[in-house]
């Protein structure tokens, strides 16, 4: 399965120069239609023909590894295959509206958003969803602001702390701090899970929220979740669900049913939109009914809603949430949307020609905004396409295969895998080897290595998430790469990689003397 990159190290001439090394040109602004005191003097940028540009970026792409190149088992990043048809959807000219379009002229866009809000609510067991946050971390920030607004609305102003387990994503700590909270870190129990006794000792009148990932970053389900929820709620705090690992639970468990009050979804992870070298993503948040009034503005809802139908739909869902009961057969999207307006609806769902009207609205005590407009809309569109394609069975099966793949791979690797049983990802320990060296050597076997040295609970961690997209054959080859590296000597690991476009990069020197633009190069 060797993934061949352009081997510039072996051939000096194939090294891809910077744009600025090809042809930079300066132009003067003297002939501009503005007076000189409002303009710059000149502008110097590279000037290339389109053919040169096409080769430049094509060659750069060849020096880059993606999911379509080979397995990409970065734990907690959920690098799964992204269906190609969602790209076609995202490129649809009818989706490319200006965000200030009057809502009556943007009904198609709002219809997609409304359906996505509804689907995410069902999947998360949440009563209301806002699609605005443009990334998972932005969702965390928005969610914590919702918690803060809730406490303030209840004149519960003394809550100054957010509790975060030590295994949590680093963004949890940063997001809570950004919102003005002191972060209380909770050490994990010996079994890698949240330590209930430590939680009981940590919560109190100052607790605004507990942020929890379930399954956690060790891939372990927090089995005490009901007790955890009780402890937090009894103290007057709220329970926040970090959705980064939701791919492990689709159709198996829902944060709302577990007692979570607020959650974010990582659409780019769970619902398969390409990660694009690190974004754009989308981090919608879901909340229980009592927190809905605090969501960011604007949100989308059906216009001309009759009070009766709205009330029925809302209360049914909140009852389900409150009692932790699950219906044996949920109503289909189509059914629930049809009920309020049966007479007006005439077209089939397949062509989406619904006559339902949608409008934007501001929740009563909205926290305001966490994005200038509506977040990363094209990601929302891709995610909706993915959900609409898979449906209940497909989503449930995606989780099943993700969990199966992680368990299978963990069984095959020669490194020790502490803790368990795990779900969609596992953390192996490189033991007395340097996890970073292990990762570099894996590159020589043509595969992308796992996330390294995190979470810190496991020494020399190799945090591995194969996702559902990998076949047994690929997992076997990935395991072979792990095992081959495990058997090699330290010297081989320390001098890896040997077969990639670039050899081992000195990141310490790069940080010591930062060179961040071509102006800073010799």
């Amino acid at each position, binding site marked *: 399965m060797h993934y061949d990159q352009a081997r510039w*190290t072996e051939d000096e001439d194939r090294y891809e120069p910077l744009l600025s090394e090809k042809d930079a040109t300066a132009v003067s602004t003297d002939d501009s239609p503005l007076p000189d005191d409002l303009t710059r003097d000149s*502008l110097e*940028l590279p000037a290339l023909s389109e053919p040169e540009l096409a080769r430049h*970026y094509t060659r750069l792409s060849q020096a880059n590894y993606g999911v379509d190149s080979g397995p*990409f088992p970065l734990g907690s990043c959920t690098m799964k295959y992204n269906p190609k048809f969602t790209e076609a959807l995202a490129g649809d000219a009818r989706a490319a509206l*200006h965000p200030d379009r009057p809502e009556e002229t943007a009904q198609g866009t709002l219809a997609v958003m409304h359906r996505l809000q509804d689907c995410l609510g069902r999947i998360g067991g949440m009563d209301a969803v806002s699609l605005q946050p443009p990334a998972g971390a932005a969702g965390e920030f928005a969610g914590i602001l919702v918690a803060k607004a809730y406490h303030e609305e209840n004149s519960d102003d003394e809550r100054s702390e957010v509790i975060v387990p030590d295994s949590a994503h680093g963004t949890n700590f940063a997001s809570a701090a950004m919102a003005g909270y002191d972060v209380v870190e909770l050490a994990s129990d010996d079994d890698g899970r949240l330590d209930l006794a430590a939680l009981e000792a940590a919560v109190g009148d100052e607790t605004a929220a507990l942020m929890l990932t379930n399954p956690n970053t060790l891939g372990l389900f927090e089995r005490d979740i009901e007790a955890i929820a009780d402890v937090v709620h009894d103290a007057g705090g709220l329970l926040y669900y970090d959705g980064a690992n939701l791919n492990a639970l689709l159709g198996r468990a829902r944060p709302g049913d577990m007692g979570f009050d607020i959650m974010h979804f990582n659409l780019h992870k769970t619902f398969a939109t390409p990660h694009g070298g690190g974004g754009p*993503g989308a981090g919608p948040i879901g909340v229980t009914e009592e927190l809905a009034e605090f969501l960011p503005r604007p949100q989308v809802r059906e216009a001309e809603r009759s009070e009766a139908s709205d009330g029925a739909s809302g209360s049914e869902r909140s009852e389900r949430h409150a009692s932790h009961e699950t219906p044996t057969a949920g109503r289909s999207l189509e059914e629930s949307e049809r009920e309020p307006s049966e007479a007006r609806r005439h077209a089939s769902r397949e062509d989406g020609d619904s006559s339902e009207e949608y409008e934007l609205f501001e929740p009563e005590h909205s926290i305001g905004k966490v994005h200038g407009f509506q977040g990363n809309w094209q990601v929302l569109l891709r995610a909706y396409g993915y959900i609409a394609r898979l449906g209940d069975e497909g989503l449930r099966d995606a989780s099943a295969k993700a969990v199966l793949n992680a368990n299978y791979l963990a069984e095959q690797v020669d490194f020790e895998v502490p803790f368990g049983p795990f779900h969609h990802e596992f953390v192996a320990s490189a033991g007395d080897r340097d996890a970073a060296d292990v990762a570099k050597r894996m590159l020589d076997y043509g595969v992308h290595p796992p996330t390294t040295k995190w979470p810190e609970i496991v020494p020399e961690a190799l945090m591995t998430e194969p996702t559902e997209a990998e076949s047994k054959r690929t997992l076997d080859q990935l395991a072979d790469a792990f095992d081959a590296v495990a058997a090699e000597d330290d010297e081989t690991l320390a001098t890896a990689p040997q077969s*990639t476009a670039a050899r081992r990069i*000195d990141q310490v020197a790069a940080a010591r003397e930062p060179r961040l633009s071509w102006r800073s190069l010799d």
Partner: protein
Amino acid sequence: MTDHSRAAGESRGTPYAPHTPETTAAMLSAVGADSEDDLFDIPEPVAFDGEFGIEARSERATRRHVEGLLGRNDDLTEFLGRGHYDHYVPAVVDDLASRSEFLTSYTQYQPEVAQGFLQALFEYQSMLVELTGLDVANCSMYDAATALGEAATLSQRVRSVSGDRVLVPDALREGKRAVLENYADGPGVAVETYPTDDANADLDGLEAALDDDVAMVYAENPTVRGTIEENLGEIGDLADDHDALFCLGTDPVALALLSEPASVGADVVVGEAGTLGVPAAYGTGHGLFVTREDYLRQVPGRLVGAAEDESGRRTYTLTLQTREQHIRRERATSNICTNQAWLALRTAIHAAWLGPDGLLDLAESCVTEARDLAERLDVVEGVRAPVHDRHHFREFVARTDRPAEAVRADLAEAGYAVHAVGEHEIQVCVTETTADDADGLVAAVEEVA
């Protein structure tokens, strides 16, 4: 039968897992489980055995469904701006950025196999450095509003004396202000306004609002009403006199022509980088963030640096990661993690495709097209344009005798979208994508004004 099934009779599941029933069985056997259900370690009380009620569709049917929904959007010619701009994105951007090695990759945690993306991001940073004259551009902000929020919190961290106010123009777009207030809330910063005069900064008013507890002064060029700010140097001086940071909001097209931020004393430049490379995707943005080297260690988000590998070759890597949330956690410069890299790639390709000539031409057309359209609307009875006696970039405000909302609605009926920004004020934005439609807009305004 939909195209879900790879084999006749197989039960439907995700079409994107390669497993056959045989391999699934073999894998289950290898891990000692009887079924996939056995692998889930979920206590019964919180297990979900219901259904979402989402019906699966074939790929063809899904596309038809979503395209059907999107087909409900009205086909309007948009003369809309106010911080979000539609410029023509050349086909080469879509084509090259869609190469799957770019599109399906992740954050460059293993730089040895991510040199392509890292170099592209380094080039993106470099072009922003050229455009602003400042030293450090990051490549990971969500949009103009969140970049402004990050600038405000940066000003708090870098300022030598404590200050807890940031000043923004009273005409700041409401959405931007709402985001800024959320960012400012945590560190306890107050967002306050200074007055504008004929859409540009009122220097006397700004001076009166300034005090030594101001951490940052924010101004835009062009302003939200499309005017070109004439007093940037003075605003920078006033901020400097009070040891406050001067933060300038702009975009890469405007930067090609308008005063270089470094020359007017800007300490931070924020704005919308997605004016290049990103279509008007219902607000999908890409934040611009450039600052002085002095604040390097306080910059939020991702930075790509040049490095050397063992063979001595120049390479690229994510750098200064000790600022970031995965290392510093609650002491990080921000919670910014992975986000807009692919959009930065698109901006870089678009900027490189235009080159200096093309970019300058585009910027100049933003001045001339707006000026020409304003002149044409000004002669329409019942319309005066532009309202502000200023130079304009892309957009301008026009006064209408009829209520602006009625004019806006009638224009939408006629197939044209403009903003209603006051009781008798509409705002019109024209770029090269709508310049050819200006005749139609003028004719429509003649009908409805």
